[in-house]
């Protein structure tokens, strides 16, 4: 939780993408506190398990509330927290294995609810903390510690997955682009509904994709990641589909629908406005 906690013994490797994500999230939270006039105590960071989950302990600056949950379950934890107190600003942090492997089953329901939270996914195509096993976003054929003869299942496309599930705010970015990351996370937190910021956050130890993502002209490597063209209309779902069906990894705001009711709004107007009977009345209902 703080810089000077001598008992906390975790470190990201030098060059880890998560360092950039950290600065991005910290920036977004500072902006949130200032511009929304919300105390930092109103923010809850919900972490999954993995190198990226440790984000909740690594944040410097003013400390929000946090909960370091179990593997794959940052979204249901966030669901319970948000509905216990819809005024809270809830932000989940998880890796690709946690969010898209074991945690995949939770994405659809939050999208259908349009739960008003923000999920930051740190995608490095590997299970880093357990030392280099393949993940849903590892390449087909990838040699990893758990696929010594090459990965024999395909690579999941997370952005297309989010769009099919009906997520109402989808952004994609790279960990090195801290300012853009910060802005997207801030926008995501302000978005009325379920927002996902999917970050390419390379693992220097087990799957160093910096060069592949950014390109290297001297070696003749074209960059995989590219900025989404100015003209893209994020409210146009067909345009978003087309963008995601082309090659490469688009960076920026892919899709946004802020016309939908949020889950807490719908819950409030359907159930929150009802009058609950007193316990006496409820018990009396069974009187003989």
């Amino acid at each position, binding site marked *: *939780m*703080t810089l000077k*906690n001598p*008992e*906390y*013994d*975790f470190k990201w490797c030098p060059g880890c993408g998560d360092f950039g994500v950290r600065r991005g999230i910290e920036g977004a939270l500072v902006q949130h506190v200032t511009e929304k006039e919300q105390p*930092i*105590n*109103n923010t*809850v960071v*919900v972490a999954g398990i993995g190198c990226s989950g*440790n984000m*909740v*302990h690594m944040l410097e600056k003013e*400390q*929000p*509330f*946090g*909960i*370091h*949950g*179990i593997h794959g*379950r940052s979204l*249901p*934890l*966030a*669901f*319970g*927290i*948000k*509905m*216990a*107190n819809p*005024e*809270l600003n809830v932000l989940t942090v998880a890796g690709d294995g946690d969010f898209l492997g074991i945690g995949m*089953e*939770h994405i*659809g*329901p939050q999208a259908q609810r349009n739960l008003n939270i923000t999920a930051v996914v740190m995608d490095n195509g590997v299970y880093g903390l357990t030392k280099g096993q393949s993940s849903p976003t590892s390449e087909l054929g990838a040699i990893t510690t758990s696929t010594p003869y090459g990965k024999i299942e395909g690579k999941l496309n997370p952005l297309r997955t989010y769009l099919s599930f009906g997520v109402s705010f989808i952004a994609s970015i790279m960990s090195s682009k801290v300012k853009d990351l910060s802005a997207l996370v801030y926008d995501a937190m302000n978005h009325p509904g379920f927002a996902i910021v999917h970050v390419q956050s390379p693992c220097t130890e087990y799957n160093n994709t910096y060069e592949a993502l950014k390109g290297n002209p001297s070696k003749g490597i074209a960059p995989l990641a590219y900025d989404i063209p100015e003209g893209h209309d994020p409210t146009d779902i067909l345009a978003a589909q087309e963008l995601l069906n082309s090659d490469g990894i688009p960076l920026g705001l892919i899709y946004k629908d802020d016309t939908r009711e949020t889950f807490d709004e719908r*819950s409030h107007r359907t*159930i*929150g*406005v*009802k*009058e*609950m*009977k007193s*316990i*006496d009345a*409820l*018990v*009396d209902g*069974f*009187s*003989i």
Partner: protein
Amino acid sequence: MKKQDFVVRFAGEGGQGVVTSAEGLAQAMAQSGYYVQTFSTFPSQIRGGPTWTQTRISTSTVLSSGDDLDVLVAFNEEAYNTHKDDVGEDGVIVYNSGDFSVENSEKALGMDFAELAKQTGNNRAANFVVMGALAELVDLPIDILEEFNRAKYTRGRPSDQQIIDSNNMALGLGSVEAKTSGFNLGELADAIKPEGDQILVNGNQAISLGSVAAGLEVFIGYPISPATPILLWMEANLVGEGKFVYQSSSEIESITSLVGAGYAGRKAMTSTAGPGFSLMGEGIGLAWMAEIPCVVVNVQRGGPSTGLPTKTEQSDLLTALYPGHGDLKIPVIAPGTVEECFYAGLMAVNWAERYQGPVVLLSEMALSERNQNIPKPDLSKDLGETRQIYQGNNGYLRYDGFELSPMPIPGQSGSYVANGSEHDAMGDTTHLPSRHIQMTERRFSKLNLLNDGSFEEENSSSNIAVVPWGGSKGPALDAYNQLISEGMDLGWYYTMYIHPMPEEMLNALRKKDLVIVPELNYMGQYASVLRSEGINAVAITQYTGLPFKVRHLVSEIKNLVSNQIKVGV
């Protein structure tokens, strides 16, 4: 000598009105001041399938559903064949002669349910035809049922009087059939109306009411037999500002979102059964580790795995105590009667708040659907407890020390990280041996706060005691009372607070030569828990999906007492 109770079993195909008839009879008799209890069993399908419900009516509190039947009401031939041997020697079988015929039976009274109902002009009056016959069989004044009829169908609708009249006619027709047959069970004694107000509820409803009396705010659950009615009740009734009820997408989502809600300051509960409970193991462990209040109701059914979804069993005790891996032992409250279900719902929520952790409420299928009249709980005082909330400055060491400490709530001061990993006082992950020692001992020390459980004790001087748990309490108490009246030297101990168990009760049991534990499972789970506490416990096991018969327990207890088996600790 007048009968003090009688037992009626309604059996037939799902959808024929079996359960409605039984519950209607229970309601009618409860209104007249009798004590009632029902036992239901259903097939695991939506339409059809064999189903039966047993109603026991008595002039005093009903403890068990009845070993033998005074009356079997058979709606179809399969029911007749399946259940006829359960009818006592002096009993009567009322069967639907419109559906099938019975040869060579000295105790069978045939009535054409549908035809008689038709005569009243209301095809759905068949239940009242049967009730009229039953009343005649026990010399029960028909006006008691006429009064029930009038009260039930005075709803301010235009068709009310017509229905009341046709039902009254049905009562008369059934009564005549029974009178003509010449069968009689003996006169049922007059009701001794219970003192004080009464409510007629089932176990699931009682748990729901108890948890709301404690101030429950959040309920997130998933459909599963036999716990689904709790979710449905909550959806309908736990509404309004500050409440949240939802059907989640899985039991994993249920428990995890519960932990989130508890972390964010709410009193939160879920209900499930065996298979769902297994899925919640990891989540319950997180609540224990991060010190977050929440309640999990497990309505036990036949196991293991998918098991017998609509049958009763008591085989989840060990998993309730140890649902997750590692050093943890979850507080468990296991009500044994419908009345205890209310107080279990109340205490489970209160315990969770008090010790800041998860609590398991173990009910069972037989209790969940059991309708019983119980004294109306005293709600004149606020019965709920709330956790100690931190209200100081930021920079608070949430997990400092070896004992419970106040809990910060998100949105207020004292931000910290709740953590499933072992952690230091701030909640950051650590592997230091000294921290694992401190935190482990701290988590277990909080159990000492839950030492207010009560227990029953009778004949404490006896060297042998009967100690049941959960729903086996009723049949065990009936057996114990019978053995005492026959002059046996036997003691009785009972608590619904399985863990932590009242220390005084444990100490008393440690001194016994033999402790007899009737329980509906194969492994003798409660007996093994008692043995681990240094008690010489032996189980009477049964794993049929059905409750104990009193006569079986009487004979088994007699065997054990005469053999006095000593089991090493």
